[in-house]
């Protein structure tokens, strides 16, 4: 299979990107400034992320669509207002996560943002569970650009006036160069920010105008360190087919109103709600400067293996190594002493609260 390019590929090259293959796309891992500078610029000003490799799945048609989708996703879609977004999961029958995603209610259906590596499979899975009357469109004529950071609202407002009034996890239609764009206030960095769905042919000029207003392009490398500091999961590392949302410590994303109802994986989840889980995702802070990467084994003080790191790096803003992983539930309490096996040595560490970096989201109305 050939490697795909996003509509911003030429721009990445123009701004000195180091390109790598990611989920069958040629993507920028970093630009000239490097991961640490890019990370810090996002936290202090604003960063532009090309996330066009992610799937934008539009589902419409049929009066019963909301009910049908509630049989697939554990989100409270009936309560969702138009333009409101929720974080949810596509699960298998064992309650394992096939993908984590954001569902937004649109005027004629739903928009689901899918992970790049999962999107084609997700499409097939969702299609197979829905009646033929529903229309699914994994729209590849659209690019997806994230703008993140404390200055994101000011920068974006200069290019697309009015979008600063959006509340967190809400979206709306705007106009850019006479074309419709859909903007949501959301992100993956722990900062305030937006995701802009825009026609491929307009993406380059749009990003250039964000750059003219002070933002900088940020690569996938910094996207990873930013999301880790924010305690957010990366599918394939921290979430997979054998891990449930409860084990992933994402219970908050399963509304109480849905626990007693039926959806794919609901039996397993209901059980885990009642009886608890064996393993749990936790934050991990090594005592020293040693970095524990994904797959590092975790031990207790009796040298018994109790879990595994799923993501780990150096956090440029917290200026310390950070990690997350799964441990036996009895070791999941904050401040529990654990040991990480790095290059044959047992490195002391502590279970800690997530996120490592305090969130800076713009609070919207609370929707219970």
């Amino acid at each position, binding site marked *: 299979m050939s490697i795909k390019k996003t509509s911003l590929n030429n721009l990445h090259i123009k701004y000195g990107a180091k390109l790598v293959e990611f989920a069958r796309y040629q993507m920028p891992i970093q630009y000239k400034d490097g*991961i640490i500078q890019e990370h810090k610029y996002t936290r202090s000003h604003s960063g532009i992320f090309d996330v066009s490799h992610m799937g934008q799945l539009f589902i419409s048609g049929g009066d019963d669509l909301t009910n049908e989708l509630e049989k697939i996703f554990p989100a409270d879609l009936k309560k969702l207002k138009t333009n409101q977004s929720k974080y949810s999961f596509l699960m298998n029958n064992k309650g394992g996560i096939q993908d984590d995603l954001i569902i937004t209610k649109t005027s004629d259906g739903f928009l689901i943002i899918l992970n790049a590596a999962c999107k084609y499979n997700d499409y097939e899975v969702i299609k197979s569970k829905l009646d033929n009357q529903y229309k699914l469109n994994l729209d590849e004529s659209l690019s997806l650009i994230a703008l993140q950071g404390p200055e994101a609202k000011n920068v974006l407002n200069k290019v697309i006036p009015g979008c600063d009034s959006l509340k967190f996890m809400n979206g709306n239609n705007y106009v850019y160069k006479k074309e419709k764009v859909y903007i949501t206030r959301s992100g993956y960095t722990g900062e305030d920010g937006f995701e802009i769905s825009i026609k491929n042919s307009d993406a380059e000029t749009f990003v250039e105008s964000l750059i003219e207003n002070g933002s900088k392009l940020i690569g996938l*490398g910094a996207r990873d360190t930013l999301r880790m500091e924010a305690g957010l999961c990366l599918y394939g590392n921290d979430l997979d087919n054998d891990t449930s949302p409860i084990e992933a410590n994402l219970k908050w994303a399963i509304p109480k109103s849905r626990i007693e109802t039926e959806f794919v994986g609901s039996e397993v989840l209901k059980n885990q709600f009642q009886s608890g889980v064996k393993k749990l995702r936790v934050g991990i802070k090594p005592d020293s400067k*040693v*970095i524990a990467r994904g797959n590092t084994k975790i031990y207790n003080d009796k040298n018994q293996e109790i879990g595994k790191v799923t993501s780990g790096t150096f956090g440029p803003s917290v200026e310390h190594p950070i990690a997350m992983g799964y441990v036996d539930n009895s070791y999941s309490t904050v401040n529990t002493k654990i040991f990480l096996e790095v290059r044959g040595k047992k490195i002391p560490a502590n279970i800690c609260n997530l996120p490592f970096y305090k969130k800076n989201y713009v609070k919207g109305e609370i929707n219970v």
Partner: protein
Amino acid sequence: MSEVKYSKEHEWIKLDGEEATIGITKHATEMLGDIVFAELPEKGSHVDKDGTAGVVESTKAASDVYTPVSGEVIDTNQMIVDDPSKINEDPEESAWFFKLKIKDKSEMDSLMNQEEYEKFAKETSA
């Protein structure tokens, strides 16, 4: 004038009599990106040619540091352990990794000179 040579693993080595100073090349730091962690061999330990003698980690990944020659570790550079970003700033001077008392000068013979290394680095990164 002391002699500087280079290994295929992107280390440089400067020989002064029997004392060799070893570090990683500018080219290596550019490939690694921002370095955030460095681990050095223990003073007094013995390292063998082409064996592991340390680790550097960038935000992305960990890489072993090899020694281009055998010898006894007589000094290590605490500065780069305390502030690994110094390796990106000045890799071929102040941000050296360790010093060895070497045994066999002939181990230097198989290493590249500056011109050869520059050619090698260019070819391998293309």
